[in-house]
């Protein structure tokens, strides 16, 4: 369905929503009870939307984003993967991961199983802190717990660390859990709302591109489907000529719709990552990834 029809659809929806909002006020709160937050149902519906839209793809193919959408691009990707550009970041990440802090400890001491093969469990809902903790946040929390200064969420060091941790989890299916805690359900819902909310002067939401127009082109870029889009994180983009973390990807996507980005790892971004990862449960980790 081309972008024009989306916009016509969106503007109709715009008007319809206005009417719906008005109707809602008339009916009153009872309508809200109907909107029970049901992540499992959402995940099933989300995955069904994409397997219906791309019947020729198996679930695990979605983790290769645009390369499962276009044969010519897939060939270029396979040639890059022979000796991928993220090779250096991977080695730097491994070295950093085992280099002790000033107090002698290392990242491995902060993570279950020494941080090896656990990426698929992140982000998780920390019931003590009452918020979503992503892999990037956990790495900085580990640094601070060991008296080290936190590092930037969008720069190479964070990308190298998360690249190495993702690499040790390659092939393991995403396994995001939502504990029976109303705050966790709300975080999931907030992430979902952010994902579908239109923002920026171009008035696009994440869904405008990665759901309604997955597989289509916008200028030169082939839009990756939202299903499995975080499985390849962190990614080395030829566009950037360097590695990029999930935080960097969220920030740049905002800017491209002319929306002012939020602080990396702010609540909205972490909840968004929580939602997007949960609905991709079962799909294998394929990070670090190489992208256009």
């Amino acid at each position, binding site marked *: 369905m081309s972008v024009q029809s989306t916009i016509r659809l969106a503007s109709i929806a715009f008007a319809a929503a206005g009417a719906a909002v008005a109707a809602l006020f008339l009916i009153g709160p009872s309508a809200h009870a109907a909107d029970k937050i049901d992540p499992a149902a959402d995940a099933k519906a989300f995955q069904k939307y994409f397997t219906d839209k791309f019947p020729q793809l198996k679930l695990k193919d979605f983790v290769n984003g645009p390369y499962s959408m276009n044969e010519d691009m897939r060939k270029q990707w396979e040639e890059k993967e022979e000796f991928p*550009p993220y090779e250096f970041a991977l080695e730097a990440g491994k070295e950093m991961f085992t280099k002790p802090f000033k107090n002698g400890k290392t990242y491995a001491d902060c993570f279950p199983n020494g941080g090896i093969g656990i990426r698929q469990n992140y982000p998780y809902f920390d019931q003590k802190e009452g918020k979503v903790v992503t892999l990037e946040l956990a790495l900085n929390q580990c640094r601070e717990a060991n008296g080290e200064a936190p590092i930037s969420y969008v720069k190479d060091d964070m990308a190298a660390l998360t690249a190495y941790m993702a690499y040790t989890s390659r092939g393991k299916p995403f396994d995001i859990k939502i504990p029976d805690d109303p705050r966790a359900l709300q975080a999931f819902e907030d992430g979902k709302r952010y994902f579908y909310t239109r923002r920026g002067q171009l008035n696009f939401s994440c869904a405008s591109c990665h759901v309604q127009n997955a597989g289509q082109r916008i200028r030169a870029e082939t839009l990756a489907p939202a299903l499995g889009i975080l499985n390849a994180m962190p990614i080395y983009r030829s566009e950037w000529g360097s590695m990029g973390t999930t935080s960097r990807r969220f920030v740049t996507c905002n800017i491209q719709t002319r929306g002012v980005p939020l602080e990396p790892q702010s609540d909205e971004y972490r909840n968004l990552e929580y939602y997007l990862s949960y609905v991709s449960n079962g799909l294998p980790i394929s990070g670090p990834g190489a992208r256009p």
Partner: protein
Amino acid sequence: MASTIRVRATLNGDTTEVQALIQHPMDSGFVKDSKGAIIPAHFIQQLTFECNGKSVFLCDWGTAVSKDPYVKFSFKGASKGDELKISWVDNKGASDSLTSKIQ
């Protein structure tokens, strides 16, 4: 400092396939930085591969070779354990080299 050269040389039959990836900015001199100043040209000009003292491949590169350059070729006449010497020099005179055993 760890070498900038990553190489895989694998022997199958009598042919050795060589893949090399080199960490280098390969600035073409046509690109501007965020403040609008031209980033000066800084790229690898020549990359050589030698095995058992004989040149097996020689690359002359210009400003159109991608960042962190990659090259793949194959050659005959080597055996497992032989040493492959890879070295590059760039337009600023910097250089690096690495010797790796054929697997």
